[in-house]
């Protein structure tokens, strides 16, 4: 079973968000990393780049597949997890910790309310699996 910490927000594209004031940290969920398998490469944006909510900001590659990663909230990239260049496997081993991907400055705090909570996200995973 995938781990879905209660204090985080989630998207249907399987990103998680940790909101802290005006800043949000973003990564992919435990469920997403399990589906992908061994991550071998993470492509991330540069600091200062701005993305609309739901637009792709990078990609994560496993041995078998490339998946795009989508912006959970509109914002500007303030920090990028450079350690994933050398250790992309952190996305597998610690998706909510060392496997974080970017920190953004939130542009529209109202969007935070549109994120799924952990229970809604778990329900969504179950629905997806049932299809």
């Amino acid at each position, binding site marked *: 079973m995938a781990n879905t910490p209660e204090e985080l927000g989630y998207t249907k594209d399987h990103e998680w968000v940790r909101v802290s004031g005006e800043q949000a940290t973003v990564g992919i969920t435990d469920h997403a990393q399990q589906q992908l398998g*061994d991550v071998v490469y993470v492509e991330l944006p540069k600091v200062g780049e701005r993305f609309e909510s739901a637009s792709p900001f990078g990609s994560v590659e496993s041995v*078998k597949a490339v998946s795009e990663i989508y912006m959970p909230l509109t914002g500007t990239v303030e920090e990028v997890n450079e350690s994933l260049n050398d250790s992309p496997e952190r996305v597998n081993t610690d998706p909510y910790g060392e496997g974080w991907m970017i920190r953004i400055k939130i542009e529209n705090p109202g969007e935070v309310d549109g994120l799924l909570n952990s229970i809604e996200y778990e329900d969504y995973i179950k629905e997806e699996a049932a299809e």
Partner: protein
Amino acid sequence: MLKRTPLYDLHVSLGARMVDFVGWHMPVQYAGPIPEHMAVREAAGLFDVSHMGEIEVTGKAALELVQRVTTNDVSKLDDNQVQYSTLTNESGGVIDDLLVYRINAEYFLLIVNASNTDKDYEWIKGHNTAGSVVVHDTSGAWALLALQGPRSERILQDLSDRMLDRIPYYWSQWMQVDGVNCRVSRTGYTGEDGFEILCPADSARHLWNRLLVTGQDRGLVPCGLAARNTLRLEAAFRLHGNDMDETTTPLEAGLGWVVKLNKGDFVGREALARQKAEGLKRKLVGFEVLDRAPARDNYKVAVDGAEVGHVTSGSYAPFLKKNIGLAYLPTEHAAVGREISIIVRGRSVPARIVETPFYKRERKFD
């Protein structure tokens, strides 16, 4: 409706992730492609490759028919010897690549790719004009297990009634494996020592389970198609449908060593002889990406900003820990050492043409 091998239920119960592979429900991974890949390089892995096709050619003129439809020289084979070869059309294009087993002078067993089995069977039958030869597609009767990796021999020896160290690379034997009659060959698609075990379909579950239990202490793990693909790519084994098809010749694919133009006439000989005399306009090369981004199938290849080809197979290579791939390039750009660019999502990434295979094991046999 997807086809299932006799081992389908066992894959599901082992927790494999199942995918549709050319119409077959196949395990793509169990523990994950990287640990499975490493197990085969360092210990052993067991693959279900029962989706592959078996075509049996029997009769007085069996040798003549196989000789006529394949590019390698079947007359060089002794009983029990195995040969890698290609099936080509009149233009020299690769219909399929295959293993030819000579069981005896009047009995040849061909092991072909799953996606091409029906096409190959019709093609071979279509060239069977002599009348004294029977061509059968017996794929349904057989299961095929591939036991691969440096510890394969010790694992299989525990269950076998023959001395496996007497079977050289690309030879085969009938033997009993845990009481089941099997055709066992020292062959494989991983670049490691190992065996392919052809057994009656209804014995496959028994053998699969026995092999996994017997090999457990030696690090044997079940492996899926993802690891099979990265292993074969490190060894630079071509994949039909990716690295060659009916529009490319074995010469272009770097398989000139299985094209024996002097063996007598065969389908495609004239076209291949002409291409050889005129020189190749393009060829399949191996490259290493000089960047962390993996090259993937169908990514474009550029030289000096101009598109010159595309990646036919590309992946992260788990044992080599590099990003590698194969691509067709015009001969003038195909020299080893040459720098090329791979276009990764709009970004030009540097790569270098290298010698293949990318990975070569230290051989105890041959």
